C-alpha cells in the first residue's frame, strides 16, 4: 500500500514535469497536440494525487503504525473523525492535502474553461502544474508521508493527534485556509497567462473572477474559523493574537481584497493594469510566503509545524516565482499602459485607489512586524518581538481609514463627483455616524478610537442602507413593483453590486464586534474555595466543587460554578481541564455562554489538590457579531459569485437601447414623445 502511495507521487511528479514540457513545446512549436497532451496530463495529475491522498487516508484509518506519519499523528483510541483530520494535522500530510487541492483546482479550471478561455489555457495549465511540481518535489524527495520505520518495524501505539487540534473547528479551518491559499493560484495563473500570451485586456480578469472570489471566500472562512478556534480552544479569551501564522493567512487575504476592488477600475475604465497584475502576483506570493513561514520554522508560533530542512526550497520557489512573474510584468510594461486617466481626485476610482493603498499598507505593516524578529537580529544584532501591542498601534489607524473608505467609496461617482452630489450622498450617513456616538457616549463607551470605529460603522451602515433605499425606490418608480419585490429584484438584477454591499455589511458587523470586545472587555481572576464567589460585570459566579472523570483517551477535571446574572440564576458554568494520555498533554476547555450582546467566558485556570480553583471570568461584548458577520460575508460573497446578473444587465441595456432607438425613430418621423 505504501508503495502505491509513494509511486503515485513519483508518477505525479513525472507527469507534472511532462505537462510543463508539453505546454512549452506546444506554445513554442504552435502544436495543438502537445497542448492537448499537456492538458490531459494535468488531468492525470489529479488522478495520481487523489490516489496518493486516498492511500494516506486508508493508512490513517487502519492505524497502520508501520508508517511514521500515522504513528506520529494518530493513536488507536483517537476518535474516527479526528483520525481523518490527521491528514492535514502534520507536516507531510498537509503538504499532500495541499497538493491534492491544487490538482482539484487545476481540474476545475480545465473542466470549466469555455471557448473564451481557450487562448489563455495553454499558459494557465503550466503555471498550475509548475506549482504542483514544486510540491511534488518536496513530497517525493524531502518529506514523504509514506516513510516507514526502519527494518519494517511498527510502533506499538501512536503518539496521538495534538490535543489542541482535536476540535470540530479543525475540520473546516485548515481545509478552508488551504483552499484559499491554493485557490489564489488560479487567478494568479490567469494573470501570468495574460502576461505571457500578451492578451492583457480585461478577459483574464473576467475569466478568473469567480476563482478569485472563491479563493477569497475560503481565505475569509479560514481566517474567521481560525479566530473562532483560538477563542474556543486556546482559552485566553481572545480570537486574534497577531501570531505569525495568523498573519501569514491574513496577508494574502488583504492583497486579494485589494485585487477584488481594483479589478473594477480596469473593467470600468481600463486603468491600473500594472497594479492589478502586481496585486494578483502579490496575493499568490504572500500565500507561498505564508506556507514558508508555517513550515520553515524560521519564526516560532503555536500553529507552526516546527523546524525542518526544506524551508530553503520554499524560499527558492518564492524568489524564483516572484522574479519570473515580475520579469513578465516588466517585459509587458508597454502593453500595460492605462487606456484612461483619472479625471478627478474625488471619484470612485480615487476611492478604490486609496482603499488599495490602505489594504496593501496593512499587509505591508503586518509583514514588517512578522519579520521584525529576523530583521532586527540582522540589522541591530538584537532580537525584537512584535506582539499585539505593536500590530494594534500600527494597524488600527489604517483599519479605521479602511472602515471609512468602505462607506465613502460606494457614494462616489465614477470619473468625477460634484460637491452637490457629495452633500446629497453623505448627509444622512454622516448624521447617522455622528448621531450613533451620542448614545454610546451616554452609556459610558467613551474611548476615542472605539467611538471613531463604532461611529464610523454607523456611517457605513447609513451608506449601505441609503444605497438599498435608493435602488429600491428607483426600481419601484421604474417597474411599479411592491417594495419587497423591488428590493429582491435589486439583487437579481445586479448580484455583484448588492452582494458586495452584503459583504460590506458583514465586515461592518466584524468591525463592531472586534471594537467592542477589544475595548470593553472585563476580566477577573480569583482563587476560590468551594462556596466562595466572584463577580465579573453583571455576573456573579459561585464555585461549588471540582468533578473528575476518566475515559480511555483522556482525564477530565471540571469546576462546577453556579452563575447568576443581575441576581438571577442562569445555570452552571463548567470549565474543564483535560489531560490526554497518549500525547501526555493537558489542555484547557473553556465554558462560553454566548449571547447577542456579550459572552461570559469562564476558564478553569488551575485546579488545586485541596479543592481550590483559580477561575478566570471574562465578559466579552458583541463577540457573536464577529462570527455572525463572518457568516454574512460568506453569504454576500456567494451572492457575488452567482451567475445571471451580467446576463440580465445585458438584456436590460438592450431593452433601453431599443427604447432609445424607437424614440429616435419617432422623433425623426416628427411624432415626438
Amino acid at each position, binding site marked *: 500500500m505504501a508503495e502505491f502511495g509513494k509511486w503515485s507521487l513519483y508518477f505525479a511528479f513525472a507527469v507534472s514535469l511532462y505537462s510543463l514540457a508539453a505546454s512549452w513545446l506546444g506554445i513554442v512549436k504552435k502544436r495543438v497536440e502537445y497542448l492537448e497532451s499537456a492538458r490531459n496530463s494535468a488531468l492525470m495529475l489529479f488522478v495520481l494525487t487523489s490516489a496518493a491522498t486516498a492511500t494516506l487516508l486508508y493508512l490513517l484509518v487502519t492505524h497502520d503504525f508501520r508508517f511514521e506519519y500515522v504513528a506520529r499523528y494518530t493513536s488507536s483510541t483517537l476518535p474516527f473523525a479526528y483520525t481523518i483530520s490527521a491528514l492535514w494535522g502534520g507536516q507531510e500530510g498537509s503538504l499532500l492535502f495541499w497538493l491534492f487541492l491544487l490538482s482539484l483546482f487545476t481540474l476545475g479550471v480545465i473542466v470549466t474553461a469555455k471557448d473564451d478561455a481557450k487562448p489563455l489555457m495553454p499558459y494557465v495549465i503550466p503555471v498550475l502544474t509548475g506549482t504542483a511540481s514544486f510540491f511534488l518535489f518536496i513530497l517525493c524527495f524531502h518529506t514523504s508521508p509514506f516513510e516507514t520505520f526502519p527494518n519494517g518495524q511498527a510502533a506499538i501505539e501512536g503518539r496521538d493527534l495534538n490535543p489542541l487540534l482535536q476540535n470540530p473547528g479543525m475540520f473546516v479551518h485548515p481545509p478552508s485556509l488551504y483552499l484559499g491559499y491554493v485557490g489564489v493560484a488560479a487567478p494568479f495563473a490567469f494573470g501570468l497567462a495574460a502576461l505571457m500570451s500578451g492578451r492583457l485586456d480585461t478577459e483574464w480578469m473576467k475569466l478568473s473572477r469567480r476563482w478569485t472570489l472563491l479563493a477569497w471566500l475560503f481565505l475569509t472562512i479560514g481566517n474567521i474559523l481560525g479566530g473562532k478556534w483560538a477563542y474556543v480552544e486556546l482559552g485566553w479569551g481572545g480570537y486574534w493574537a497577531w501570531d505569525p501564522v495568523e498573519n501569514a493567512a491574513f496577508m494574502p487575504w488583504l492583497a486579494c481584497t485589494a485585487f477584488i476592488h481594483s479589478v473594477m477600475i480596469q473593467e470600468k475604465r481600463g486603468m491600473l493594469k500594472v497594479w492589478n497584475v502586481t496585486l494578483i502576483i502579490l496575493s499568490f506570493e504572500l500565500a507561498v510566503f505564508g506556507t514558508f513561514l508555517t513550515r520553515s520554522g524560521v519564526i516560532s508560533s*503555536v500553529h507552526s509545524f516546527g523546524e525542518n530542512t526544506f524551508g530553503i526550497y520554499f524560499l527558492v520557489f518564492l524568489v524564483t516565482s516572484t522574479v519570473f512573474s515580475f520579469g513578465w510584468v516588466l517585459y509587458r510594461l508597454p502593453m500595460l499602459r492605462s487606456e484612461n486617466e483619472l479625471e478627478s481626485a474625488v471619484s470612485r476610482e480615487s476611492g478604490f485607489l486609496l482603499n488599495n493603498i490602505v489594504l496593501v499598507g496593512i499587509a505591508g505593516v503586518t509583514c514588517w512586524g512578522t519579520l521584525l524578529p529576523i530583521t532586527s537580529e540582522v540589522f541591530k544584532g538584537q532580537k525584537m*518581538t512584535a506582539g499585539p501591542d505593536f500590530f494594534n498601534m500600527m494597524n488600527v489607524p489604517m483599519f479605521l481609514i479602511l472602515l471609512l473608505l468602505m462607506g465613502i467609496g460606494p457614494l462616489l461617482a465614477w470619473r*468625477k463627483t*460634484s460637491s452637490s452630489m457629495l452633500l446629497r450622498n453623505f448627509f444622512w450617513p454622516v448624521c447617522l455616524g455622528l448621531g450613533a456616538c451620542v448614545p454610546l457616549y451616554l452609556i459610558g463607551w467613551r474611548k476615542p478610537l472605539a467611538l471613531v470605529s463604532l461611529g464610523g460603522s454607523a456611517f457605513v451602515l447609513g451608506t449601505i442602507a441609503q444605497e438599498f433605499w435608493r435602488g429600491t425606490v428607483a426600481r419601484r418608480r421604474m417597474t411599479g413593483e411592491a417594495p419587497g419585490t423591488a428590493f429582491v429584484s435589486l439583487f437579481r438584477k445586479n448580484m455583484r453590486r448588492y452582494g458586495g454591499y452584503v459583504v460590506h455589511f458583514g465586515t461592518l458587523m466584524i468591525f463592531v464586534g472586534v471594537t467592542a470586545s477589544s475595548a470593553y472587555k472585563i476580566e477577573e481572576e480569583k482563587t476560590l474555595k468551594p462556596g466562595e464567589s466572584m463577580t465579573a460585570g453583571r455576573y456573579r459566579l459561585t464555585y461549588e466543587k471540582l468533578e473528575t472523570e476518566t475515559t480511555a483517551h483522556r482525564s477530565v477535571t471540571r469546576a462546577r460554578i453556579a452563575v447568576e446574572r443581575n441576581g438571577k440564576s442562569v445555570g452552571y458554568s463548567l470549565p474543564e481541564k483535560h489531560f490526554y494520555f497518549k500525547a501526555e498533554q493537558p489542555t484547557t476547555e473553556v465554558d462560553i455562554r454566548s449571547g447577542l450582546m456579550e459572552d461570559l467566558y469562564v476558564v478553569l485556570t488551575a485546579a488545586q489538590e485541596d479543592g481550590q480553583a483559580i477561575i478566570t471570568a471574562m465578559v466579552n461584548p458583541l463577540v457573536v457579531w464577529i462570527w455572525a458577520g463572518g457568516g454574512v460575508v460568506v453569504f454576500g460573497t456567494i451572492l457575488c459569485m452567482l451567475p445571471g446578473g451580467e446576463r440580465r444587465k445585458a438584456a436590460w441595456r438592450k431593452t433601453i437601447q431599443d427604447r432609445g432607438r424607437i424614440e429616435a425613430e419617432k422623433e425623426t418621423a416628427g411624432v415626438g414623445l
Partner: protein
Amino acid sequence: MMNGAKIANRWTAAACAAFLFLAVPAVLAKTAKEQGMNGKDIARKLMCQCGCSMVAAECNHVNCPSAPKLIARAQELVERNLTVEQILDEFVEEYGGEHVLSAPPFKGRNRIAYIAPYAGLVLVALLVGMAVIGWTRNRRRADPLAETPEGSPSPGEENGDPHRERMRKELKEYDV
C-alpha cells in the same frame, strides 16, 4: 511682516511649551501601582518565552514554564512602586534583550521599526497623489472644456446624439 526678534521669541516659546509638554509628564509619571495596574496588566506588554508567540498574560498553556513566572515577577515589580517603563527596563535586563517585550520601546534605533512602514506608505501615497494630480492636470490641459458634470461621458464618448445621451442617463440612473 514679522521681524526677526518676534520670530525668535515665538520659536523660544514653542520650544518651552514642547519641553513642558514632554518633560512634565515624565517627571510626574505615575507608578504602575498608582495607575491601578497589576502583574497581569504588565504581562500584556511581555511575550511569553515558551515559544507560543503570545503575550505572557494570555498564554494559557497548562504548566507553561514561562508565563506564570513573568506575571509573578511583574507583580513583584509593581509592588516596588516602579513605573511601567522601569518595570519593562527591568525585564529587558533580566532576560538579556528586548525580545521579552511585546513591542519594541519607542526609543533609539527602535523608532525605525515604527516609522519605516508608515514612511513607506506615505511615500507611496505621495507618489500616487502626484500621479493623480498629474493625470487630472493633463486632462484639463488636453481638453480645457472638459469641465463636465459628474458622471458625464469623457471626451470621445460623447457624440452629441440627444437620444444616446438620454439613454446613457437612463442607464446610469438604473445602473443599480
